[in-house]
């Protein structure tokens, strides 16, 4: 295959990654900090790092589900899947270049603005930079071979390229996570910060939880952006055929986003648990200290996401012939989602005037504060996940009717599983109020496991029950109202904002430490800003991100026109 000129630009960008390392040797000196004009060093690095992460998340996530979609197309011999996978991949090319450019910019900024800290990280993790850079080259090679080789390689070779792309991408993620998590939970170093064991520094307390959390979150985030692309194309579509295609694309994107989103809170539990295991101080700062109110904002965001995800499914059922029979259940699902979101968003203490506080007898509301504790919140989250799962189950069954003889029994068993799980989760939630902290903290594990068990077992039963189901009608792809497309945008924006918020807390959690407990932040930015200020910064980052994404969509659209011609 002739080497295409199109390869040069992204490969040159990748090569940019090496420049910072070379330049570093020249500019490293004893200066601890330099000031970035106007917005300051912290905000500058914050914005660039977050933008880099967002694009990196997208670039790492899309190949995961593209590969699965392509594989489904290969196994079923359905060209639609292959076409869909290709369309998603088309978004990757520009996004990958932007990721590399932002990564190089971030490295430059760290070296110029935080030379001493960067020097320390390089002295600790220097040997990991070489495989990282090499893997980046491999990523570029796999990605562009995968994209430009679409339809040109035999299917199995092409799928193998996709597997390679995913493996390399995951390895890159894991290496970068080692640096980030070391800053939060350093290990493998002496009391004076000197590296003792590189593997211990890499495999620190929060490394694997962050790896898993990011893998899942990336897929969810990538799915939501891909769904937004489908919505964008749907709104601009001129024919019914186009609308049908992009409606389907939006659905697949949102399906991926929701599927990955459901287990995300569980990965979050694990991460929080490891943070506590590493340092109770760090854990308390996260959940009970300066950042406790951040989780109220998070609850509102995730609540909105769950509401929007359910809403999209409920609208989607309108285009499925036969799904009308489930419409009467939607109001109960809505009630459940709403109650769960409200409980989750209730703070333990309230912002009150002195007079209000006197009337309440303190900052804790006599009734609401009962719901503002982890026992209630964990219960609410678990039921919220189950409710969303039920919405999906109904959507899936929309135009199907089970033909197996044991269908009634199957439905009954599924209902019992749900009922017992909900009862068990609620029981543990109430029980948590009457036991000491040590026991209460551990109750979240059986709650999570029971919900996971319910989802897995009900899915298995459902798959068997509807294997040879009779179709009650068709799915009228393309017959979706405009508000459904805006719901997809809403999900993508909320996901991005949530990612910005959680990126902030992961980094801000260290407070006045560059490397927690090892290297103190002595800059003018050593304080932790207000959540309001952080919200403004996150919002601006999100808007910049979507400006770039609009550019990516536009370029992908140009590619469409070319294909059309």
């Amino acid at each position, binding site marked *: 295959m002739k080497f295409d000129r199109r390869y040069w630009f992204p490969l040159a960008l990748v090569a940019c990654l090496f420049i910072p390392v070379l330049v570093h040797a020249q500019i490293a000196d004893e200066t601890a900090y330099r000031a970035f004009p106007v917005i300051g060093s912290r905000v500058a690095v914050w914005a660039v790092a977050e933008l880099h992460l967002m694009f990196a998340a997208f670039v790492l996530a899309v190949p995961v589900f593209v590969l699965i979609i392509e594989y489904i197309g290969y196994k079923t011999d359905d060209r639609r899947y292959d076409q869909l996978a290709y369309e998603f991949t088309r978004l990757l090319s520009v996004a990958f270049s932007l990721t590399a450019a932002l990564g190089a910019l971030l490295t430059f900024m760290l070296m110029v603005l935080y030379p001493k800290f960067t020097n320390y990280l390089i002295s600790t993790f220097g040997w990991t930079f070489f495989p990282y850079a090499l893997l980046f080259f491999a990523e570029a090679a796999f990605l562009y071979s995968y994209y430009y080789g679409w339809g040109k390689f035999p299917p199995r070779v092409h799928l193998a390229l996709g597997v390679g792309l995913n493996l390399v991408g995951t390895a890159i993620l894991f290496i970068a996570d080692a640096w980030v998590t070391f800053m939060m939970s350093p290990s493998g170093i002496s*009391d*004076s910060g000197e590296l003792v064991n590189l593997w211990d520094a890499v495999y620190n307390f929060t490394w694997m939880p962050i790896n898993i959390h990011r893998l899942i979150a990336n897929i969810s985030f990538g799915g939501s952006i891909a769904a937004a692309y489908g919505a964008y194309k749907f709104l601009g579509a001129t024919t019914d055929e186009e609308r049908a295609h992009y409606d389907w694309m939006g659905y697949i994107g949102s399906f991926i986003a929701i599927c990955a989103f459901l287990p995300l809170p569980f990965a979050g539990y694990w991460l929080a648990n490891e943070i506590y295991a590493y340092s109770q101080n760090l854990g308390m700062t996260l959940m009970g200290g*300066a950042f406790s*109110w951040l989780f109220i904002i998070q609850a509102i*965001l995730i609540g909105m996401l769950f509401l929007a995800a359910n809403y999209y499914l409920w609208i989607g059922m309108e285009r499925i012939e036969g799904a009308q029979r489930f419409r009467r259940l939607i109001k109960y699902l809505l009630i459940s989602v709403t109650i769960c979101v409200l409980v989750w968003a209730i703070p333990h203490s309230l912002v009150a005037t002195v007079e209000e506080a006197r009337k309440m007898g303190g900052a804790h509301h006599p009734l609401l504060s009962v719901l503002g504790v982890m026992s209630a919140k964990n219960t609410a989250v678990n039921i919220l996940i189950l409710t969303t799962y039920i919405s999906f189950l109904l959507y899936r069954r929309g135009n199907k009717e089970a033909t197996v003889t044991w269908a009634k029994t199957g439905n009954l068993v599924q209902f019992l599983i749900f009922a017992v799980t909900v009862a068990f989760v609620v029981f543990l939630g109430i029980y948590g109020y009457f036991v000491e902290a040590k026991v209460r903290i551990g109750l979240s594990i059986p709650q999570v496991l029971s919900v996971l068990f319910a989802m897995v077992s009900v899915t298995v039963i459902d798959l068997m029950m509807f294997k040879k189901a009779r179709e009650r009608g068709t799915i009228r792809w393309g017959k979706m109202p405009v508000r459904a497309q805006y719901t997809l945008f809403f999900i993508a924006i909320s996901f991005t904002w949530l990612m910005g918020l959680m990126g902030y807390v992961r980094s801000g959690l260290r407070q006045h430490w560059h490397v927690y407990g090892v290297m*103190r*932040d002595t800059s003018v930015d050593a304080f932790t800003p207000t959540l*309001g200020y952080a919200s403004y910064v996150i919002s601006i980052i999100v808007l910049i991100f979507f400006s770039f994404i609009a550019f990516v969509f536009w370029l992908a659209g140009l590619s469409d026109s070319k294909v059309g011609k």
Partner: protein
Amino acid sequence: MRHSLGIVLFTVLVTAFYAFVGQLVPQKETYPPQSTEVGENLTTSEMVDVGREIFEGKGTCIGCHTIGSSEAGRFPDLAGIGARSSSSKEGLSDVEYLAESMYEPDKFIVDGFNPGMPPADKPPISLNQQEVLTVIAYLQSLGGQPTITMQTKLKYAAAIPEDVATNVASSEEMGGEALLTAQGCAACHHLTEPDRLVGPSLFDVGKRLTRGEIYESIMDPDATIAEGYPPGLMSATMNGTRFYEKVTLKQLESMVNHLASLDGRK
């Protein structure tokens, strides 16, 4: 075009909504904890006041412990700790028990609670011994009578000075050569002559040893002993001068760099 504008407007609106939500929660900037001035001549009652300040501030104790709360917290409620600490662990006085709880918190775990409290003298808290004494005074005052003084000797080694924990960001600018002199290395090693003193000459050490070996020779002197020199002497000297407690990463790097540059040429 109409939809493009709609999408842009929608994106801005949703983003603005979340920015607005961020304004509805309490707004508080958190600053790095300030060190409290602990004078050598504090009276016990003054120690109680200073101790409370550290308890609520730099010590971050209040993040996990409550005082007089009816709700079960993550760590034990400390109301009345001054009265019960003398009988909390057999064989330990109240001061010894409280000191152990702060220096070696995992040594004794109160029933019903998990281990997990970080040692108060280690980062990220890094209280020095004087600060620990004042916190003990404060804890004794919770339901009891403080008896501790600034002269009370605790069995634990002096806390690591804060500049060790934060050495990487410390501001000392001495060069490697000056540091070697300041640390007293030249008392035993010639740096500019090939002659031996108590220890071998280092004037050409950069030719003989790699940076890693030099580092090892400083941090673990007995790992490899130069022929004709007694083992244990250097490590005993270094420990005696508390070199390892005082030296910072930056200083160590400077010293190693300087030694690595010594190639026997004057």
